[in-house]
């Protein structure tokens, strides 16, 4: 602790009791932080090999592609790739890229694109809208309403604003709700199995 303590400069002019007791408090605070940190760093049982929330969500995004039919105009050619987009801050890191690498769905490759602007994002087939976009969400969803884009979000009430799939967390598991009305407006057909597995399915 010696080098840490020397961080508190000596203050020759102040001998008020307030300042002294505060210094003690600070020392106590620092010690406690280190102590708590010490305990916390060694939990009895670590399970670092289990997937993280966003690894699971990335796998969901990929899986959704298998249960959605896009209108023909959504693709330039019969073998055009399926574009999975992330709008706003990317929470997935390389996990999403790794997950789709080399995979195909019905002859189509999968590519990942990241967007910082909704204007360009309308070119995606599946669009994950990050929590960073919450404030602009009504306008973003309104812009995409009639585009054949499967919008996926995770902020509360995403579907009530016209989103199609909304992730939720329950007991450390990732679930999803579906808004079939919004899917219909976007001219997307969702397979029955997807609707069945949703926690809620309501427009």
């Amino acid at each position: 602790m010696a080098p840490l303590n020397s961080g508190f400069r000596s203050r020759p002019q102040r001998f008020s009791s307030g300042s002294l007791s505060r210094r003690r408090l600070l020392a106590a605070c620092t010690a406690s932080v280190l102590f708590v940190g010490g305990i916390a760093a060694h939990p009895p049982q670590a399970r670092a090999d289990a997937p993280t929330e966003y690894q699971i969500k990335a796998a969901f995004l990929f899986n959704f592609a298998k249960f959605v039919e896009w209108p023909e105009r959504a693709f330039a050619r019969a073998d055009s790739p399926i574009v999975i987009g992330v709008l706003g801050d990317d929470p997935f890191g390389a996990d999403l890229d790794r997950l789709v690498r080399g995979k195909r769905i019905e002859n189509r490759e999968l590519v990942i694109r990241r967007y910082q602007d909704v204007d360009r994002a309308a070119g995606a087939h599946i669009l994950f809208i990050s929590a960073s976009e919450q404030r602009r969400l009504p306008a973003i969803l309104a812009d995409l309403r009639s585009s054949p884009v499967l919008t996926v979000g995770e902020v509360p009430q995403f579907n009530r604003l016209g989103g199609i799939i909304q992730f939720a967390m329950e007991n450390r598991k990732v679930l999803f709700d579906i808004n079939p009305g919004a899917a219909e407006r976007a001219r997307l057909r969702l397979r029955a199995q997807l609707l069945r597995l949703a926690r809620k399915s309501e427009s």
Partner: protein
Amino acid sequence: MFRTSLAVLLLAATTAGANAQESAKPPTQAEDLGSASLEDLLGTEVTSVSKREERLANAAAAIYVITQEDIRRSGATTIAEALRMAPGLNVARINGHDWAISSRGFNSFFANKLLVLIDGRSVYTPLFSGVFWDVQDTLLEDIYRIEVIRGPGAALWGANAVNGVINIITHNAKATQGLLATAATGTDERFLGGVRYGDTVGKTAYRAFAKYFDRDDLFAPGGGSGGDGYRIARGGFRSDTDLRIDETLTVTGEFYDGSTTTRLGVPTPAAPFTRLTEDDYPLSGGHLLARWNRRSSATSQSSVRAYFDRTERESPVHREARNTVDVEFQRQQVPASRHDLVWGLGYRFTQDRLQNSPTIRWVDRSRGDHLFSAFAQDDITLQPERLRLTLGTRLEHNDYTGFEIQPNVRFLWTPTETQSVWGAASRAVRTPSRFEHTVRAVYSAFPLPGPPGVGEALVVGTPDYGSEELIAYELGYRTQLTPRFSLDLASFYNDYDDLRTLEPGKPFFEPGPPPRAVTPLIARNRLSGRTYGAELAANWSVTDRWRLSFSYSALRVGLRPDANSRDPLARVPEGDTPEHQLHLRSYLDLSSRLSFDVLLYHVSRLETGNIPAYTRADARIGWRPSRNMEVSLTFQNLFDRRHQEFPTTFLVTPSEIGRSVYGKLTWRR
């Protein structure tokens, strides 16, 4: 009481450890998620529910994000003006090229409790621990967003992040491909133009830009021109390279050159004791920054960032050249289930070369300072989806005061999906500046009745000057009341110690010429104080095409000089910042091509300098006749003919801000 709450935290952390022991179903391995079915995924428990990005929306701190769209639709032409949109910040334009910007009090041109970073590059000057806002710029279209954190961020960002942190983040080069050209002109903006081009070569996306502006004088308080225009040319680039699937390299560089017109009353030791000067003074500088990032998964990444920054500037009383080198390593990892750890190491070296003038002299004309730092922050999920605890601290060693430790404790409680409560207790320090340790600055000159006939007040820096200290307590609440209405309330109580006073010392005789009696004003840490206040921000999407943003900020400042302080002006900072600020912004899309936006700012009166309250109204009409083109017209300060926003500060002359209008053309393909 603080101790009791720590005991509670301790208990909570121990309980969290015990919870982790509960056995769970064997999880799906991260590697074979690609072949997992929907059913498999629905049944899989996850290790950690936290991650970096989520924290912006759900952070245990008072944070506000100004987006690119906000900047564009505000009509702001400088970063400083764009910051008006952040609740809790006080932005006052002192004159054409000088701003006073501060968070939660203590505003001044020399405001020294705010840390400002552009893509991770610190832009506050060690000269006075403040920011020269006139040169903080880039192509505004390249800014992705500005994160404004009110309250201490010292544990993560280091000394000087006392009252707030401003993080300016530019777009990834992938998001700025193609050609962009803008040109604007108006009554205050004589000319503002920029060109940017972005392309991709192999795995490298890049962009390069050039911009130039020429801003007109504002108005002198008595009438006439303010003699405070400025013009700067700037060029820069950014490249983003995908080295591997999880490895990126970002390189940015910028260079600027320009001049400010500065009108200044310089203290002189002969009648009339103030000499009015007005001239153009050069500014130039630039930086080169590289950042390597390896992000192996959502919760594991490492980065190394290094930059070199040079700045040169001149004024009637001062000339400075400064080189800074900075290297930082950061690592984020999940050491155990429920833990999300970020730690880092940093080193900075800054060297200046200063020139003496009759008004400002320095004990040493050149000085190099080393700064070493280490920080760690652990984000602990005590109860998944409900309760998170963050413990962090930073340890620094600087050449002025030696070691400084800046810990903080934060919690975030999310009782329901749409509500959260957060709180924090932090310690932060503001380390001394070059000014406080080594300056000799003539504050004023005045006639004396007896010999030698001339008196002078001289600000004297001393190596005894220590760090200013803050212990801050914060509590906040956020709610998404309906899908279209959200509310964010933050409150704080700040307890400051060892703030700066200028103590009159024993007068001495200076033989001159001319001979004069000098009263030294010595920099000391003899002021303590408390501030408290609250900021409320609301966002309401009235319809899909009409959005309202509202904020109200309240602040009280109480300062108490120590018993041995004889500084008559010690309590002046109490009146430096308005007690009330109200913002209302309306964003309306009349059609997919036409938008109409209104911004209203009400700022209550400043006691210092008796600056009256003012209400500023800006309006902007934007029209997009085609996908490639936008035409906009921005009216600023519609309501009043002229107003002053900040009083005279030492060697900075205020001007009045008048009505202005400018038109802008943006073309992109």
